[in-house]
């Protein structure tokens, strides 16, 4: 008995390390789930998709006029263009700061995104959770109003969002985003329909992957405390070697987070607008090891 055990142990101590190849093991066992969405933006909403430290995300976003002009107006492309440029820089893998400018009302916005939780592949963390806070100022010229022109403080607005998302499968990802926007002075001279200071809404974003590099996208933002129409958007995301293109139909012309909630929406269908985002990530401050 003892001899058998001994022989076995001897055999083991010889054979195992000597004959076997290396055991294939992953560097990190419990990996984070990646690409819940294709990019840090998804139609109009920010997502849980993080940037890596020192990455710079550039998004150029457009919406155009409503479809109901038909071919005469080239389905809205002739007029009503609203453009937002957005730059977001990651100070760490969790925190990034962004600056954006929307052409409608010439709104400058500063915002931050912080990633609290990351979904993992073994489901020990079932969701990714991020928060976003932003402050903006309308820089349009209202000098013609003379003494009634809004002051700097009255031109400011604020946004806060909590993004909770889950990649349910390789194809399907969903994000739920409780959102709020606050206008210090919802002046009717602004390009907004609402007259309240505070707007609450619940954003739903969905991504359904149809091929390796493209997905159908959906966005629905029911308002919780205003009579404004709800935002609806449908589109497609395409990854093209480093860029993510997002084309969509959406009921709102606004791209800024605060205006998105206060700006009002057209009826889905006739009053859809064509929208188009281009997302690009640049590496900064890093040698890429080119020789």
């Amino acid at each position, binding site marked *: 008995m003892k001899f058998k055990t001994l022989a076995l142990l001897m055999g083991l101590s010889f054979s195992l390390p000597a004959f076997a190849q*290396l055991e294939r093991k992953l560097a990190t066992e419990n990996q984070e789930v990646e*690409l819940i969405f294709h990019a840090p933006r998804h139609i109009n909403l920010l997502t849980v998709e993080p940037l890596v430290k020192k*990455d710079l995300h550039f998004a150029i976003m457009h919406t155009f006029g409503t479809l109901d002009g038909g071919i005469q107006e080239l389905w809205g492309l002739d007029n009503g263009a609203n453009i937002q440029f957005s730059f977001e820089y990651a100070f760490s893998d969790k925190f990034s700061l962004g600056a954006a400018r929307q052409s409608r009302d010439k709104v400058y916005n500063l915002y931050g995104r912080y990633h609290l939780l990351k979904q993992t592949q073994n489901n020990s963390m079932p969701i990714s959770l991020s928060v976003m806070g932003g402050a903006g100022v309308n820089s349009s010229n209202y000098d013609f109003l003379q003494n009634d022109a809004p002051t700097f403080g009255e031109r400011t607005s604020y946004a806060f969002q909590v993004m909770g998302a889950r990649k349910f499968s390789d194809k399907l990802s969903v994000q739920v985003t409780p959102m709020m926007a606050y206008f210090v002075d919802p002046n009717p001279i602004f390009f907004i329909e609402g007259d309240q200071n505070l707007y609450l809404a619940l954003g739903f974003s969905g991504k359904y992957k149809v091929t390796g590099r493209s997905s159908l996208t959906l966005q629905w933002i029911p308002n919780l405390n205003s009579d404004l129409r709800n935002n609806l958007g449908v589109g497609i995301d395409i990854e*093209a*070697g480093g860029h993510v293109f997002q084309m969509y139909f959406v009921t709102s012309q606004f791209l800024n987070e605060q205006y998105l909630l206060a700006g009002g929406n057209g009826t889905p269908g006739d009053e859809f607008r064509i929208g188009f985002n281009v997302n690009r*990530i640049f*590496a900064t401050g890093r040698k890429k090891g080119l020789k």
Partner: protein
Amino acid sequence: MKGFLIFTLVFFLLIKPDEIKAQVFKTETGTVEFLSKASLNEFTGESSSLNGLVDLEKNLLDFFVDLNTVKTGIGLRDRHMRENYLETKKYPFAEFTGKIESLPVLTKGQSRDVTAKGKFKIHGVEREITVPGKLTMVSDNELKLEAQFKVLLSDYKIDIPTVVFYELSEEQVVTIQATLRK
């Protein structure tokens, strides 16, 4: 008798064959770099988690790297690379197992050009390849290995996107550097 048994047991457990033969070199921190050199855009991906084993006694080479550790310098590009091109969830490793053709006898401080032949596997496709490289016996306990070879993505069924903005080269130059220790 019992004392002898325990002694042999302890002896064999403590002294591993590696140490007896003294010809097995290993590393977990070798570096792998791939260079994609297309006309419009050139970029590299790097990992320093190359696991390797060189057994000069048995003439066995065995290397693998977790492709999740390869970084190109842009986080989103890495994620797209993992999900769409390398499909690391399904095929996490790049592996090479083979042997050295006409194994040289190396003494301390010597360096020799060698050719390795074996199976390279990535993206679930395995192919027989020949890799030229250089072995250096740095000291009695340290073996340095350098090698460079080319990988055609289509050989391994790795897609190249048709619409590209940073161009991805069909031909990737892979460079390996590892210092293996006993």
